């Protein structure tokens, strides 16, 4: 499955970049600067979406005590942290020319920063406990408590008066963007999505091997006979 998702990710991102830079027209208000949207919005969506997937696996791990779910949480966390960082980084590079500042303590930006700390906190907590099963449980609870932050991020632009603009794409009222811009952005988002699956699957393979190194099936793997 991994090569498939890698290939889909590469194709979609290349197409998305082409559409974003050469097909989509210049914005009448922000000029060429708006093109940051094609990485900013997909990265922000992924930062929240990956956290929800992590929370799902963390809950599965706590309820059914399955080992693979905790490994999935562990495999997703670095990718989620990376997308959160990218969301903040590209946001700063967008805020500077449009708002005149790299950073404001605005509800949207602050809650996204908290999300970044949640990812870092999860990684730190998990790696600080030697016993894997205890680390899984403790950090799963951290992930589940942190889920309250996701709706806060999502609705922050509605609940508070923020410098960050309201959602351009919404389930209720549709999109306020030109179709070609929207399509380019969605292609990029799908590409990022496939990328995340590919990277998480790649990482979970190492985690499984590490944790199951004493089991018989690992010692019988073809890769071990070299």
């Amino acid at each position, binding site marked *: 499955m991994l090569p498939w998702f890698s290939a889909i990710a590469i194709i979609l991102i290349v197409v998305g970049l082409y559409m974003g830079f050469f097909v989509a027209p210049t914005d009448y208000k922000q000029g060429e*600067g708006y093109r*940051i949207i094609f*990485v900013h919005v997909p990265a922000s969506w992924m930062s929240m979406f990956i956290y929800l997937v992590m929370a799902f696996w963390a809950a599965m791990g706590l309820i059914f005590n399955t080992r693979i779910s905790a490994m999935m949480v562990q495999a997703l966390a670095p990718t989620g942290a990376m997308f959160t960082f990218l969301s903040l980084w590209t946001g700063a590079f*967008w805020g500077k020319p449009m708002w005149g500042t790299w950073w404001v303590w605005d509800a949207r930006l602050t809650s996204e920063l908290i999300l970044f700390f949640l990812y870092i906190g999860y990684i730190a907590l998990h790696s600080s406990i030697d016993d894997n099963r205890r680390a899984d449980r403790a950090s799963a609870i951290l992930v589940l408590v942190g889920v309250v932050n996701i709706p806060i991020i999502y609705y922050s632009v509605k609940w508070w008066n923020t410098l960050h603009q309201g959602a351009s794409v919404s389930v209720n009222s549709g999109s306020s963007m030109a179709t070609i811009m929207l399509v380019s952005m969605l292609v990029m988002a799908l590409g990022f999505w496939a990328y995340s699956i590919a990277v998480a699957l*790649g990482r979970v393979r*190492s985690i499984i091997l*590490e944790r199951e190194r004493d089991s018989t099936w690992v010692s019988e793997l073809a890769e071990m006979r070299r």
Partner: protein
Amino acid sequence: MKEFFNMGGYALYVWGSFGMTALLMIAEPLLVRSRRRSTLRRVSRLVRSKHTGEQS
């Protein structure tokens, strides 16, 4: 061409965003791959040492 890279005066911001994204999204898969290799090496060494330990 020059016009394209200039991005209507927003070059620093547009390329700063896309550059960092490209950097991280290329680095991460490489890190995952090198981790996979080192894990395989370490685990296979463990497995082999266990095997020889059983035989002696």
